[in-house]
């Protein structure tokens, strides 16, 4: 038995450390504080996760007020996994950030940067562990506001317009979520998610609940860059500082997908979401369009960061397809891909961060001969790229394989073509970069200039993880399976 206060600590530690960082002016000291805090959040998340793996659910009631009256934090295997993933990746990317940020951001602004970083982490973890619908909205806004600030730190002035665009779209999304939560409150008189689920009328058509679901899906869809609502994402990931791009690509959209899962399965229930409302059809259609169109757009990008930002939209498409299959196998594939893709895309963006650090540009032309100049960086990029395509023995293969199986189970053969096509398209854009890096020689012969170890190490850790989870699937597949079972188990 562990103390349920540990749950609280993983959110409050970064929340308390954030203003402390603001008071300390030294960038180095702030980094040290941020690192200690994230690594403690990670350890706490690991302890909580190992607990819920054996016992199921861990709850903490604020101020001793029992849920539905008080706000409660509630962790089961699904959000235990997401919290572990988010804190683990944040820790690794933060190691990268120390060198990368001191290169990209002025010394006097670094303490503000780490403050925003910690607030963003607190928000993301808060969204993950809370069991209260309104509290979720508040944490969502904490993490969003912090991420607008983080993006605006980008060196290019277009980072400002990217951040502004994200702010406008993100706020509309958050307001939609607020409306959805309000309608649910009007229906049930409660904000605790489990309690809402118990009080929603079952078996009768209810217009308010349908409207609430529609608002929530669109609102969360904006946050997770669901296909037609993804317009903010490419610019935001491209112009943000390297470390921020990797951080957001690997965590923020994943947390948004978790929010979607939580609302669809725990709050509304499987039957309402997929049988009464035609969400399965909507998700599958949008997912297919996302995979094909975003991958196709990625091929024609000249900026490599932007290329992989579009690739993120496509990969989110796979997760949404898995959801839309509306079966346990599909849900398992979704959660698995969410987990694997976080490592892969984190690895790719960190490798690109190394390139930006050394070459000062991530335009395709600048990468000519990079395979010879920075062999370790480009090797990491190549391996992560293979995993993204879904070559066997990689994590990307495992999740696509499960998506395959889920589609076959439904006899949706057309879906197999879409998945294969998506992989082929990703092969093309990864190949464009590889060709430029290995087969073109730079105009004038330049010496080897490898990125420093402090950047390479975190990159390789993520790349290693994206292979490790392809070989040893006990943790990822086992947990994804259990998580899907838990989510479906909420429905009566």
């Amino acid at each position, binding site marked *: 038995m562990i103390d349920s206060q540990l749950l609280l600590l993983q959110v409050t530690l970064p929340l308390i450390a954030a203003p402390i960082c603001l008071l300390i002016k030294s960038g180095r000291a702030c980094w040290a504080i941020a690192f200690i805090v994230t690594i403690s959040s990670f350890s706490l998340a690991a302890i909580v996760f190992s607990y819920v793996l054996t016992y199921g659910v861990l709850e903490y009631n604020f101020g001793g007020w029992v849920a539905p009256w008080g706000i409660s934090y509630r962790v089961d295997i699904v959000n235990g996994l997401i919290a572990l993933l988010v804190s683990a990746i944040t820790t690794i990317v933060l190691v990268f950030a120390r060198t990368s940020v001191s290169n990209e951001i002025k010394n006097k602004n670094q303490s503000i940067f780490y403050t925003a970083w910690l607030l963003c982490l607190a928000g993301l973890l808060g969204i993950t562990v809370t069991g209260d619908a*309104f509290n979720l909205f508040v944490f969502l806004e904490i993490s969003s506001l912090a991420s607008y600030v983080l993006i605006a730190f980008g060196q290019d002035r277009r980072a400002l317009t990217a951040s502004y665009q994200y702010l406008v779209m993100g706020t*509309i999304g958050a307001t939609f979520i607020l409306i959805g939560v309000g309608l649910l409150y009007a229906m049930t008189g409660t904000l605790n998610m489990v309690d809402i689920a118990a009080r929603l009328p079952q078996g009768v058509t209810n217009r308010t609940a349908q409207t609430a679901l529609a608002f929530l899906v669109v609102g969360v869809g904006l946050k997770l860059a669901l296909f037609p609502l993804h317009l903010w994402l490419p610019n935001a990931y491209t112009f943000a500082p390297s470390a921020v791009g990797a951080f957001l690509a690997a965590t923020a959209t994943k947390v948004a997908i978790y929010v979607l899962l939580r609302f669809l399965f725990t709050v509304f229930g499987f039957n309402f979401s997929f049988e009464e409302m035609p969400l399965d059809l909507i998700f599958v259609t949008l997912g297919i369009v996302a995979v094909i169109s975003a991958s196709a757009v990625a091929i024609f990008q000249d900026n490599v960061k932007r290329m992989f930002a579009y690739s993120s939209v496509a990969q989110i498409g796979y997760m949404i397809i898995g959801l839309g299959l509306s079966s346990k196998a599909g849900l398992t594939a979704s959660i698995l891909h969410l987990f694997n893709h976080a490592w892969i895309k984190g690895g790719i963006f960190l490798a690109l961060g190394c390139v930006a650090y050394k070459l000062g540009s991530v335009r395709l032309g600048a990468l000519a001969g990079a395979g010879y100049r920075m062999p370790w960086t480009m090797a990491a990029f190549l391996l992560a790229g293979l995993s993204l395509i879904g070559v066997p023995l990689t994590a990307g293969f495992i999740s696509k394989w499960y998506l395959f199986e889920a589609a076959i189970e439904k006899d949706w053969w057309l879906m197999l073509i879409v998945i294969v096509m998506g992989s082929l398209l990703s092969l093309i854009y990864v190949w464009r970069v590889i060709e430029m890096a290995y087969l073109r020689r730079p105009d004038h012969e330049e010496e080897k200039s490898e990125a420093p170890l402090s950047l390479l190490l975190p990159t390789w850790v993520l790349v290693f993880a994206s292979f490790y989870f392809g070989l040893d699937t006990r943790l990822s597949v086992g947990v994804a399976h259990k998580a899907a079972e838990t989510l479906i188990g909420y429905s009566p």
Partner: protein
Amino acid sequence: MSALGLYNYWIVIFLMMTGFYVVISSGNLVKKIIGLSLFQASVFILYISLGKISNGGPPILREGVELYSNPLPHVLILTAIVVGVSTTALGLSLVVRIKESYGAVEEEEIHRQDESL
């Protein structure tokens, strides 16, 4: 009668659509933020309207009142107002920085400058 009786919801919808329209149609970054605030404010009114109970008094203990309106939505909306204010502040400060580096707050002008690079 019932359609008019729910007049505050009509106000909510009107405000919401006005704000949303300004966000979409205006090319001026400051006006967009104003539209966004209006959009958020309409949701505040929605929440407060939800808390009203027919014939219920304000939620303050006093003699002669048995039925009270629900105070919880008010509390929730206090939090949402804080979030709204910080969003507006952050949005406007971004506009200031954009103005500093582009010398413009019109979307078209900013696009033009980015493309000429």
